[in-house]
């Protein structure tokens, strides 16, 4: 029997009606993979199969890279303004298909409809940013560096790039890279996550509709073999990757560097949210909820270690009680129900991994004050991938749950006597993706921003996700490379600078 507040709202219409086997998009055509190995793509809320995706072969990769390589000479000679116009056409199509793409994201990933729409918007913003390429790609010059001699820097594209994207943002993450790559005159191969290939399949359809020349942007589905082949392919100039640190550092960066690739490798995280005693609690609580439980905690910017600063037990208890209450009230269910605030995690494997961390936390002596294993799901869905929000207290930075990335809806409460101690705790962790402080003190906030070694700093902002005009930063074990995705960093990553010195006799 459901309680009144548990009643499920009407489910938004699902855009995927039939199961089909996806094809690769290569050289402007939809081609079947040579592989006989096919994987199911499932909806983590309903556990229903949505599509079949091929695990492409090395031969498939060769075809995609060759197509991109062949398209490159003509594409780089296409004027930046003309290239920008292709992007503007794509932008228009993305707007027209906004809701359909958002619902596909919910179905294949499990996130809520608000989260998925937010993801689409962020992707579109990158297209808008990249469409400014006629200006963004400009070089610079100086007259008379010596008598009668002028010098200039011009930016030129390299050739073929690729991105290897993760399951947690199936639509958005390739947009941190490919719009900039093609805007600057490179050609591209997108490798979507085989767990969530439908969003990028939808993007490929729109790229075809936008009329990009054959081979400029290609999409290839698959797994490790595809990744390995792309990393070692002699025609691939550079690789963008988003995923875990072990894979990013030990596979992508190690192998890619060995094969001379330009690399931007965005990895894992263990993000701190530091709560000062003067924080505005009413506004802080929803922000902390969004940071920790948004996307079911499956994002590299998710808040995880929530560190309450100060010796005041009353403040600590008040904060703890507030977050426990707020987290207990979170409605968990299928993201196409608009009243649902948190969806399932992507797969049973991922759920098992998170459950393993909860067990470890208990064994390590942390206190589970909200047990997310006690399921309360809105609607009649299999519990395979669902978890409710969990909260541990008495967590220390040396505990496994305090130092490793859980990538699930688990909050770990910590305490620090003062800001010095909190910053020390942040620095004791090998990751450096993001950290936030909640305070009313400008002085403390400035100190936090100045000292904390993380790529993305939030001041009264729990989810430090940079918009398209700024790089998606990251430090320490959260990033390997020198130029990040998005913004001018992306323009620089995808262009080579050439110096020209001129003298006329």
């Amino acid at each position, binding site marked *: 029997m459901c309680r009144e*507040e548990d*009643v499920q*709202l009407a489910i938004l219409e699902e855009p995927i009606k039939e199961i089909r086997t996806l094809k690769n998009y290569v050289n402007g055509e939809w081609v079947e993979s040579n592989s006989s190995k096919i994987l199911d793509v499932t909806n983590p809320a309903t556990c229903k199969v949505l599509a079949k995706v091929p695990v492409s072969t090395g031969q498939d990769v060769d075809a995609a890279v060759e197509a991109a390589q062949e398209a490159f000479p003509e594409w780089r000679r296409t004027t930046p303004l003309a290239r920008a116009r292709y992007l503007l056409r794509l932008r228009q199509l993305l707007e027209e298909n*906004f809701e359909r793409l958002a619902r596909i994201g919910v179905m294949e990933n499990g996130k*809520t*409809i*608000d*989260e998925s*729409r*937010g*993801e689409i*918007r*962020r992707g579109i913003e990158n297209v808008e940013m990249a469409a400014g390429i006629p200006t963004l790609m400009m070089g610079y010059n100086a007259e008379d560096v010596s008598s009668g001699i002028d010098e200039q820097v011009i930016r030129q594209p390299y050739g073929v790039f690729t991105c290897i994207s993760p399951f947690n*943002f199936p639509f*958005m993450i390739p947009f941190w890279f490919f719009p900039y790559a093609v805007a600057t005159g490179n050609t591209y191969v997108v490798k979507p996550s085989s767990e969530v290939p439908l969003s990028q399949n939808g993007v490929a359809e729109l790229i075809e509709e936008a009329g990009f020349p054959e081979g400029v942007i290609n999409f290839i589905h698959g797994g490790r073999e595809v990744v390995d082949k792309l990393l070692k392919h002699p025609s691939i100039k550079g690789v963008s990757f988003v995923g875990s640190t072990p894979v990013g550092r030990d596979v992508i960066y190690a192998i890619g560097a060995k094969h001379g690739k330009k690399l931007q490798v965005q990895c894992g995280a263990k993000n701190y949210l530091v709560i000062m005693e003067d924080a505005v609690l009413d*506004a802080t609580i*929803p*922000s902390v*909820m*969004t940071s920790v*439980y*948004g*996307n079911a905690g499956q*994002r590299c*910017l998710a808040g995880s270690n929530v560190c309450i600063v100060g010796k005041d037990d009353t403040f600590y208890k008040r904060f703890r009680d507030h977050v426990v209450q*707020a987290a207990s009230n*979170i*409605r968990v269910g299928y993201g196409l129900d*608009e*009243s*649902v*605030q*948190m969806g399932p995690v992507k797969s049973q494997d991922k759920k098992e991994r998170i459950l393993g961390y909860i067990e470890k936390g208990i064994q390590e002596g942390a206190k589970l004050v909200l047990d997310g294993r006690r399921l309360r799901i809105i609607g009649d869905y299999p519990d395979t991938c669902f978890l409710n929000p969990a909260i541990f207290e008495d967590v220390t930075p040396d505990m496994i749950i305090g130092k490793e990335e859980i990538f699930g809806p688990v909050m770990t409460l910590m305490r620090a006597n003062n800001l010095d101690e909190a910053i020390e705790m942040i620095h004791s962790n090998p990751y450096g993706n993001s950290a936030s402080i909640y305070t009313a003190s400008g002085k403390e906030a400035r100190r936090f921003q100045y000292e904390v070694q993380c790529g993305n700093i939030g001041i009264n*902002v729990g*989810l*430090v*996700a940079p*918009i398209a005009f700024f790089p998606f930063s990251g430090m320490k074990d959260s990033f390997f490379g020198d130029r990040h995705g998005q913004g001018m960093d992306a323009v620089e990553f995808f262009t080579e600078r050439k110096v020209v010195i001129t003298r006329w006799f």
Partner: protein
Amino acid sequence: MPLNTASAIISFYAKLEDQVANFYEQLATVESYSAGKETLQDLAKENRRHRELVERAYREVITDALEACFAFSMNESHYIIDTDIAKKTSYPDVIKKAIEIEEKHHRFCLDAYEKSKSLMSDVAQAFGRIAKKKLSRVARLRSLLESYTST
């Protein structure tokens, strides 16, 4: 039902605007209410425009970083509008009913404005503008009523 996410708020609001627009459009076709026909048609058109304004604002500002799933705590039961009218309801009674509807709708827009202003300023601005507009609609309907009763 809870209105606890931005999406739920926007959908509920869209339904309200449609419901009210349909109400005015139907009234405008009734012969015995012809005194207010032009106003009723105008109001209905405005409802459609308002819906579009709020939906566009939401779609253009929503990002995954906002507290869209965690900052709202409204309940639709407080804002449900009854647009049913009995046959042969007099013109003044119909206008009185319209005033009640507008006042309730105004309350929703005001509450949605308050809840969204700290996180989605464009959506809040849209709700704020529309809330003001609802008050001016109430005034317009009142003057319609007064001009009818004074004749």
